[in-house]
């Protein structure tokens, strides 16, 4: 049994984010981290590994420096890593990305007992689209927003969160699951793990590795193969400066309440 986990290296958008004058993101100024939801997917895979002895393989699409992130994930207990990297893949939207990642997962091979896992969404794009789109391209059933996963033989029972509650869903392997932070608390790298991670198998899949898969076609990957294009990108204006009220005492609060009353807001 194999568990294949998709992970992505993302700029840390939770801190200060720098934007270039031309409206693009200044990635060089920001820390690169492993996408938070993806770490929940890795943890879920490692828990299943402990229960079943499954092999855990991570797959990431990105530039060669993403190796560092993949080594870190292996230091947490993942067995093997694959980096999907190539000029031909650049500029892909979610549709094209899912074609490429599905081809990479096909290359690793999805057997009848296997599971593919993803984080719900990445913090740079926040689309939550790539997981379900990979599932479609692989012809696998999907369960997204997983907050609890139980495995019994070839059947998984998953608590799938909704805004107003949850659904309990049963699905058989092979399948694809997208994970949310409520699922678990990701473990840290262990000291042994850090020692071992550089000896673990690490491979790069480039265009030539994947080109025989029917999913890899110049008309369906990369910038040119992406169904969506950016029409314009821009930065939103800052709102006009408001009024700082002097002091933080009763008079200040009375003044504010007076303004709100005069504006008929209360």
């Amino acid at each position, binding site marked *: 049994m194999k568990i294949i986990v998709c992970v992505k290296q993302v700029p840390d958008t939770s801190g200060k984010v720098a934007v270039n004058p031309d409206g693009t993101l200044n990635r060089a100024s920001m820390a690169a981290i492993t996408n938070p939801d993806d770490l929940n997917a890795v943890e879920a895979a490692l828990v299943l590994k402990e229960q079943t002895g499954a092999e855990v393989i991570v797959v990431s699409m990105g530039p060669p420096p993403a190796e560092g992130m993949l080594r870190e994930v292996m230091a947490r207990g993942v067995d093997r890593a694959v980096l999907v990297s190539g000029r031909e893949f650049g500029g892909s939207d979610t549709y094209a990305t899912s074609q490429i990642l599905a081809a990479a997962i096909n290359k690793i091979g999805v057997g009848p007992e296997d599971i593919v896992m993803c984080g719900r969404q990445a913090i740079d794009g*926040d689309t939550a689209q790539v997981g379900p789109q990979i599932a479609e391209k692989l012809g696998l059933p999907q369960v997204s927003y997983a907050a609890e996963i139980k495995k019994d033989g070839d059947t998984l029972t998953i608590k799938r969160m909704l805004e107003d509650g949850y*659904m309990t869903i049963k699905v058989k392997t092979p399948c694809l699951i997208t994970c949310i932070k409520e699922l678990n608390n990701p473990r840290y790298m262990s000291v042994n793990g850090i020692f071992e991670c550089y000896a673990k198998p690490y491979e790069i899949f480039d265009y030539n590795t994947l080109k025989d898969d029917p999913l890899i076609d110049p008309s369906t990957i990369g910038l040119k193969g992406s169904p969506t294009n950016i029409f314009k990108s821009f930065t939103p204006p800052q709102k006009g400066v408001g009024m700082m009220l002097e002091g*933080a005492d009763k008079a200040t609060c009375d003044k504010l309440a007076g303004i709100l009353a005069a504006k008929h807001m209360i």
Partner: protein
Amino acid sequence: MKNMSNYNSAAIEEFNGGIWVFCEQRQGKMMPTSFELISEGRKLADELGSKLYGLLLGSNVEGIAKELGGYGADGVYVCDSPLLENYTTDGYTKVICDVIREYKPEAMLIGATNIGRDLGPRCAARLHTGLCADCTHLDIDVPKYKDFLRSASTLAPAMIDSIKEDDRNLKMTRPAFGGHLMATIICPRFRPAMATVRPGVMKKAAFDQAKADACQIIKPNFSLTEADLDTQVVEVVKAAKKMVDLIGADVVVSVGRGISKDVEGGIKLAEELAEVLGGVVGGSRATIDSGWLSADHQVGQTGKTVHPKIYVALGISGAIQHKAGMQDSECIIAVNKNESAPIFEIADYGICGDLFKVTPLLIEAIKAAKAAK
């Protein structure tokens, strides 16, 4: 393994079946976002000179279809089957893709709920078309889009003026990188252009009973059997606790990391202030991640987008990801100990001070001001 992909081979001109809105229902009750999207879809259909249709899937749901007409739908495609009672990715995707291939809409809007964001990408991948996630603004007419850019972007006027006016693609605008950037996405080569749209962003139109009565019900043929379903819904559980209705609230009082020294006390103060203002309590991502408030309270890029009449931020520094969810509020009041907190950059009224001291005074002042009216 079956490969269910089937490339979209039809020419885009053949997709002239109007604008469609997937109208999500749960337990036979229409989700509020369906009315918002029908209202927005009406405007887009008018811009395109086209018709607007709802697409409703479920079991015994025909009775709730006509109401959509009251918000602007010319008709509703109703797909009724006991197998569609609960949402399943497999069942809904199959029916929707089959119906889309037959009736060929130009564009398809889906509410960006947990279900819409599961369904949208699966359908777009099967139809081989583009999908833009979690949109906050939609246009077809370029002059209208230019007006939007003039008020909502920092682009130079000359650059906005230079945009060609003959583009008829659906222009789907969404925040990216936690709200630091906005991107307008188009899907020029494939149809339908698909968008999931953030709940609470589009405004619901006034209901018109005459239009609801005139709304056409269309029942397409479709086939769906047990064998099409690879996932089985064992149960659907509604949260026991009433979820907080942030999106519909006129006033939101949110707390942030600033309550850390007395979490319970801070939340209690926010509840009291919300009560006198007639609102509800929200929270920043930090308060949700720390487990102080449940996830339904979260305001921000990864939570809910709100635009209440009054938004009070207590002890919230104002990270961009929080601002993305509340900066369009009519009046923003911020209380924070740190005078350089970014929240003050967007606040209409700022008080630099300890929320535990200021909030009780503010509650009393508002009570007094209301009593004096």
